[in-house]
């Protein structure tokens, strides 16, 4: 009798363990984000909590990585064989991973088709397309770059909006007054991504490209040399030494420059005063929103808009369960209110890639977006017509990732602005470096 009871009890314990074991055996996957600011990490953590509360199969391990460190962190991760299952990063890095054959494109395509290709802007999908068809990444959010300028000061001096090459350099010259630490414009002149991003818009507006349609490097083309030469002349009206995005932001907010190139992420910085936010303020002008306008299309030989699409992508993994978890989380973030909460962590900066969300009243109902009023819709409209160096005539060249990770464009610009090289010399140097980078 006693023996039987013991057997029964042990059987029950075993069964209990088997059933409950399932719920305990959660799968944890790693997710890298380039959103490193504390308040943004908080939003992501809230989304993760919401996701984990909703199901108990998967857990998310969040790792934050600085955007400029992504190439190095990925390289180290690849070499060590310890990559995350899911990354949220800019298009170039996604293309580079795709070209290395590191991505689980099947998982990416599953998520894209679950969301529905019709409900993602074409312009955004194009940026993450694979040359073999299908996609390397799921578009998540995007920003548009352009010249932010002080409309009030432009009117005072009777200058025209900085939308053409001539107008830009004319205005920069008119405002440049280094004796009083006031400068004409801030554009990228350092060895970083910012320099490539600001330069790209000038190059595209002059029909200058890095790749021709067969994938050959044509960085020393007459169009590119012409653009470099213009950029060098324009850089004479910038603050001393190499400049990066931080200079652009700080000097514009402090009223030291009337023009600077920046992405839509500046919208919440400029709008701070108007929203009554009391946080990190420093030296900053009053009512900057009303004084500011945005020229996002640059006109020269053709119209050029530059921007960036960031997306989710999935790394091939031995453990398919982890990839399934990452897919579920990606779909969770891209849906309804979760998606709106995500985009609101950088209102104006992060723009929706799904038309259904972009027009959702709930999305538009944010203090900061209201402060900008009509301007905010106009600003976001550039997202669909972004042009970039890695995309020529409908073709994608993932090789651009090797060029961007070495900051060759920025280095080329520095050769001119810091070492006094001519545009021709710099273009030849850049050409050679780019060819080496693709070897």
């Amino acid at each position, binding site marked *: 009798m006693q023996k039987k009871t013991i057997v029964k009890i042990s059987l029950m314990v075993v069964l209990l363990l088997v059933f409950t074991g399932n719920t305990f055996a959660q799968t944890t996957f790693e997710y890298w984000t380039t959103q490193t600011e504390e308040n943004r990490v908080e939003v992501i953590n809230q989304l993760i909590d919401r996701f984990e509360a909703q199901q108990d199969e998967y857990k998310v391990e969040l790792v934050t990585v600085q955007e400029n460190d992504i190439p190095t962190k990925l*390289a180290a991760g690849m070499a060590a064989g310890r990559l995350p299952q899911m990354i949220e990063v800019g298009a170039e890095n996604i293309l580079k991973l795709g070209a290395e054959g590191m991505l689980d494109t099947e998982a990416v395509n599953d998520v894209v088709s679950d969301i529905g290709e019709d409900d993602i802007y074409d312009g955004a999908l194009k940026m993450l397309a694979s040359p073999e068809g299908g996609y390397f990444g799921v578009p998540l959010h995007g920003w548009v770059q352009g010249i932010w300028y002080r409309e009030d000061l432009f009117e005072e001096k009777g200058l025209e909006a900085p939308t053409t090459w001539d107008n830009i350099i004319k205005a920069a010259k008119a405002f440049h007054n280094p004796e009083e630490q006031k400068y004409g414009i801030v554009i990228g002149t350092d060895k970083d991504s910012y320099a490539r991003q600001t330069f790209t818009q000038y190059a595209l507006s002059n029909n200058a490209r890095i790749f021709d349609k067969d994938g050959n490097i044509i960085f020393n083309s007459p169009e590119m040399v012409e653009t470099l030469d213009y950029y060098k002349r324009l850089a004479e009206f910038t603050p001393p030494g190499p400049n990066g995005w931080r200079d652009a932001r700080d000097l514009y907010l402090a009223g030291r420059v009337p023009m600077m190139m920046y992405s839509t992420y500046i919208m919440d910085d400029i709008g701070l005063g108007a929203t009554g936010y009391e946080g990190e303020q420093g030296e900053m002008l009053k009512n900057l929103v009303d004084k500011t306008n945005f020229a996002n299309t640059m006109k020269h030989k053709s119209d050029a808009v530059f921007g960036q699409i960031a997306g989710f992508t999935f790394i091939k993994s031995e453990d398919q369960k982890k990839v399934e978890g990452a897919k579920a989380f990606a779909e969770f973030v891209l849906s309804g209110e979760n998606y709106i909460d995500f985009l609101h962590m950088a209102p104006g900066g992060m723009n929706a890639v799904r038309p259904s969300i972009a027009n959702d009243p709930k999305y538009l109902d944010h203090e900061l977006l209201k402060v900008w009023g009509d301007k905010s819709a106009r600003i976001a409209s550039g997202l669909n017509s972004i042009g970039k160096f890695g995309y020529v005539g409908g073709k994608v060249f993932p090789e651009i990732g090797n060029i961007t990770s070495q900051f060759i464009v920025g280095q080329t610009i520095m050769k001119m602005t810091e070492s006094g090289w001519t545009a021709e010399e710099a273009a030849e140097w850049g050409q050679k470096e780019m060819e080496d980078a693709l070897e």
Partner: protein
Amino acid sequence: MEIKTDQEAKLGYWLILPTVLAIGGLILYPVIYNLWLSLHKVNMNPTQPNTFIGIKHFIEILTDVDFWTAFRTSILFTSTTVVGTTLLGLGVAILLNRKFPGRSLIRGIILLPYVTPVISAAFGWKYLFNPVFGMFNYIMVDVLSLMPQHINWIESPRYAIFAVIIFNIWRNFPFAFLMILAELQSISGTLYEAAEVDGATGWQKFKHITLPELKFVIGALVILRTIWNFYKFSEIYLLSSSVEVLPVYIYEKAFATYSFGEAAAISAILFVFVFGFILFYVRKVLEW
């Protein structure tokens, strides 16, 4: 009797085994792995094999202009900072090696740069030398009019090397100061008294008593600082990305161009160079 010693010897080997394993694992393995990497074209994708290419990397590096530019920058940086930190440390130590009120407080304050976390010190300096808002430019240009215009000391490739050298000397001289001061305090006062009786001047006392007594501590400081600064990465890279010394060059080779094999080969070359320097220095200069 003989059997016993044999057993004792065996026991001895067992006792040193953990140390041998630890040193082998922590020092020998990375060195050998680095050498192995330097002879291969390393594939980024861990699922694909690396290809053996012999000494091709070494030939490429030794014929690369950029490598020699970085090498020259490294030599300039190392030599100026080693001389700078040692001389400044020596000078401050001698000044503070006498009695005055508040001496221990001053000695503590002098150590501050060395104990401040490098990242906060670097950001402080960046702000000090900021081209628009920085105090240094403000004083030099706007107050004293010693320079015609504001300069971006930290990021401009022409000036950044000087900023980095000054930063390194400022940050590391307290270490030299500490070592030299400790040695100064152990020099017996009777030596100086005897010299005074013989009518020696201050300079003669310094030259014939202080310096010879300090020879070994200064010798050790120079060699340590040379090794440390030749491989210095953090203080340089955090302050300015425009100064390409060899460690920064290796970092960029490895992580921006993904040439791990080439980066490993550069490390191997550096190792041989520094090792040669140490052997020469210890035999000829220190005469150990």
